[in-house]
């Protein structure tokens, strides 16, 4: 009955392997059929080929495909606001007060969009109302968050506020890679709408305020 024994042992072993082998974390993606249909040969963002075939560093470009996602120097996207040229130093910071917001009053749609962007990018620290009570500020993870409703920020020039979003300030990083120039200016206008009305408000701010009053409280 040797054969019988062998059959039994294999059967039991197979069941045990099947039940035990199915647990644990799956570290391998699995098999793919027809890889030439699955993986793009053209350039794709975040594709596996990125780091092996493409480079953005010019010295390494000799044996790899040089790919630089930045716009060609001296060019700009159609409809985009002209580049912000003031340098990131104390002189630039002082001069930024003279930079004027190139956008007109926000339309209803624009201010809703600005509110959405503010809630995603800014409210995490500055709070939905700009009062420095975002989750990261109240949990004490990031200190020194500006309360945008304070008088000093009400008095701060539009350009200086833009300068701070563009380059970052103190603990705050630069948001130039996450927000377009237009979006950054819209956010400046939205912050104005959150602030208590200063004595001498410009017409731009006043109209932004009425538009955003309804959306400001949302979320």
């Amino acid at each position, binding site marked *: 009955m040797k*054969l*019988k024994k062998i*059959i039994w042992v294999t*059967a*039991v072993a197979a*069941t*045990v392997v*099947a*039940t*035990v082998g*199915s*647990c*644990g*974390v*799956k*570290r*391998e*993606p*699995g*098999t*793919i*059929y027809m890889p030439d*249909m*699955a*993986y*793009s*040969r053209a350039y*794709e*963002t*975040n*594709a*596996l080929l990125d*780091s092996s075939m493409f480079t953005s*560093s*010019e*010295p390494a470009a000799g044996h790899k495909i040089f790919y630089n996602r930045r716009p060609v120097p001296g060019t700009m996207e159609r409809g985009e606001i002209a580049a912000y040229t003031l340098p990131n130093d104390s002189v630039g910071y002082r001069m930024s007060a003279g930079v004027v917001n190139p956008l007109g009053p926000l339309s209803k749609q624009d201010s809703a969009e600005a509110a959405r962007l503010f*809630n*995603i*990018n800014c409210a*995490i620290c500055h709070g*939905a109302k700009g009062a420095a009570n975002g*989750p*990261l500020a109240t*949990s004490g*993870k*990031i*200190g*020194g968050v500006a309360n945008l409703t304070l008088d000093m920020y009400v008095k701060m020039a539009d350009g200086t506020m833009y300068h701070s979003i563009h380059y*970052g300030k103190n*603990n*705050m*990083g*630069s*948001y130039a*890679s*996450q927000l377009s120039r237009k979006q950054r200016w819209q956010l400046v206008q939205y912050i104005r709408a959150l602030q208590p009305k200063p004595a001498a408000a410009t017409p731009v701010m006043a109209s932004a305020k009425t538009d955003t009053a309804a959306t400001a*409280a*949302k*979320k």
Partner: protein
Amino acid sequence: MSCFRKNFNKVLASLLFTAFLSLSSSVFAADGKALFQANCANCHKPDKDYTGPALQGVRERTPDPEWAYRWINNVNTMLETDAYAKGLLAKWKSKMTQFNLKKEEIKDILDYVDAYKPETTDGKSVTGKPAAEDSNYLLYGLLTIILAIVAFILLQVNSNLRKLTDDKEGVRRGEPVPFYRDKTYLMMGVLALFFTGGYFLVQWGIGLGRSKDYQPEQPIYYSHKVHAGTNQIACLYCHGGAQDSKHANIPSVNVCMNCHMAVNKYEGPDVLTHEDGSAVNGTAEIQKLYAYAGWDPVNKKYNDDKDGDGQPDGAKPIEWVRIHNLPDHVYFNHSQHVKVGKQQCQTCHGNIQQMGEVKQFSDLSMGWCINCHRESKVDFPDTAGTGGNKYYNIYEKFHRDMKAGKIDSVTVEKIGGLECQKCHY
């Protein structure tokens, strides 16, 4: 006898009915959970006060049990008319977003919240769950084996008995064939092998090119549970590409540094663990990030760029391992789904705000896509022609049908969401 049979039938029917009931109630609970996660979880927790109050038992503490149903869909008007609502605003300082949920949906959410019990977060109980499922399988396996052995013994006994009776009655039969050469047994064995083998082969074939549950080890232990869960950072803060482009995008290191210039230590409250249960040193992981960014944490500034490549010396991109991967022959656009379709990230990526290490939640199969396109409603203007996405004004027939009451909503399927060339071209 017939009476017995009648009773038996009755018992069977009631058993089936209760089984069906328990099944359907579990389906509702799952719905409530999904709805809660998608709509409420940003500001509410079932058992703890958060941005908004804890929701457990909300129907008991409001002025009347129906109050919550009215409130959720009429926040803006009730804030001006209802005294209890005004009190809430005064206490919580932030106005709740107004929703547009059906009454049964709200009921599902509140039922889920009332039945909610907090999960313990220590590693043991988390790993305990799948283990319990496995032991169930083991139990069934053992039962099957035991039953098979019993059947085998019974068959042997049967053949022995028959042999005895044959001997007694003087019937002569040929020498009995051992079971492994008996043609019936062999045939049964072959068939069993054929069907089980075929089943596993087909399952394997279907699984080709799908990587559900894929959870690769990343160069940095980045916990979505800490960032998106505890710290409530919006998904779009880092994955902003999802609203503007085809790709959701892995953030570049400078986005990490927006916060990590200030946050240089990990101090909890979540306990981070590897798959084997050992603790993750969060602070060491942040140090890894600094190395990638070329940031000097002591002097709090980026390294100088002495080699002139436009980046701080030592800085290099983090080679994250991509998890979600659609084949090249499928076109998928994030912005279409996030911005126009207003889908929550969690619909496809699962409860990402509770994942320590991210794993693929959906199998990303075509059937899964199609299913969602059949069920999801597009943001169609209502019968009065207000609200919704103005783009859908071109579907005049559906507008007429809605006015005539023939349909009450338009799914993605109806506006061509199942056409092959929508995704394959």
